[in-house]
């Protein structure tokens, strides 16, 4: 197997760091399995959402509480952060110093936090309007699904902060690189889950 071959999902270090590349094939496989397990978790929450869609119990339904514009803006922000993380990964692979990596990571972090702030604002508005999770089965499943994704993004943001510190402390050593590759899988995975969320939850709920 040559150094140019892809050995794991995400950006492969390949020829720029053959030694770490060989290790990454092993280490990232485990993380990839974890993400598949996590995907099942989300899938079951989606299934539960589908089951509970009719359980509004006379309370607000999807069309009453979802807003198309904010969902769109949130989607674009998260998608852009996925792209900027890709740029950070490319810098990790090719750049000599850590400055471009930290810069792209910083942008990703800012976008991630912006996404969280908007989402928090959405949920707070809903709660203010009485659309609290304890109101109905439908709202319970909506809040649980969205909050679980939000918690994942929050964990991702914390991980980016840790990553930035590690880059400053250790530079681009093998373990930092593998950690970055893992974080990359995680971050792109969250965007993929969000695609399912905006399609299944928001757009399905708002389709007239």
């Amino acid at each position, binding site marked *: 197997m040559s150094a140019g071959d892809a050995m794991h*999902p995400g*950006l492969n270090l390949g020829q720029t760091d053959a030694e770490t590349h060989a290790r990454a094939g092993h280490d990232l496989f485990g993380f990839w399995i974890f993400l598949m397990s996590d995907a099942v978790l989300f899938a*079951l929450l989606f299934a539960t959402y*589908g089951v509970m869609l009719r359980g509004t119990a006379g309370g607000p339904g999807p069309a009453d509480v979802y807003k*198309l514009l904010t969902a769109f803006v949130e989607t674009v922000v998260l*998608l852009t952060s996925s*792209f900027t993380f890709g740029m950070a990964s490319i810098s990790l692979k090719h750049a000599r110093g850590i400055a471009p990596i930290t810069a792209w990571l910083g942008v990703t972090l800012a976008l991630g936090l912006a996404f969280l702030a908007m989402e928090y604002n959405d949920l707070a508005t809903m709660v203010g309007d009485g659309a609290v999770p304890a109101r109905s089965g439908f709202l319970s499943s909506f809040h649980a699904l969205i909050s679980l994704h939000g918690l994942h993004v929050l964990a991702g943001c914390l991980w980016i902060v840790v990553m930035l510190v590690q880059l400053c402390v250790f530079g681009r050593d093998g373990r930092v690189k593998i950690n970055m590759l893992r974080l990359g899988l995680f971050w792109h995975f969250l965007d993929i889950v969000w695609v399912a969320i905006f399609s*299944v939850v928001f757009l399905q709920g*708002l*389709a007239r």
Partner: protein
Amino acid sequence: MSDPNRGRAAEIATYGIGYGAALALTALAFGLVSWAPFAASTTVRIVLGLGLVQIVVQFRCFLHITLRKSARHDLQLILFSALIIGLMVSGTLVVLLNLHHRMM
């Protein structure tokens, strides 16, 4: 592949294409819901289809899952996961919506 910089340009292009395609698919889906040119059920079907396409695009461009032999393990794992998820989600919906239907 020997020139690392050429690899870099190609990689940036891959992410760029993925970003552009994902943006376009997103905009299309939101646009369909916003302007509602079709009936609601048709719109939902198209939107879910677009979502699926976007997931494939992101897997291809951001996670670099390809049909190449060296990436087979990862692809197999994704396909197996998709099978299990499909079984679980469709099974849940069929069984519970059937129960719902019979109780109404």
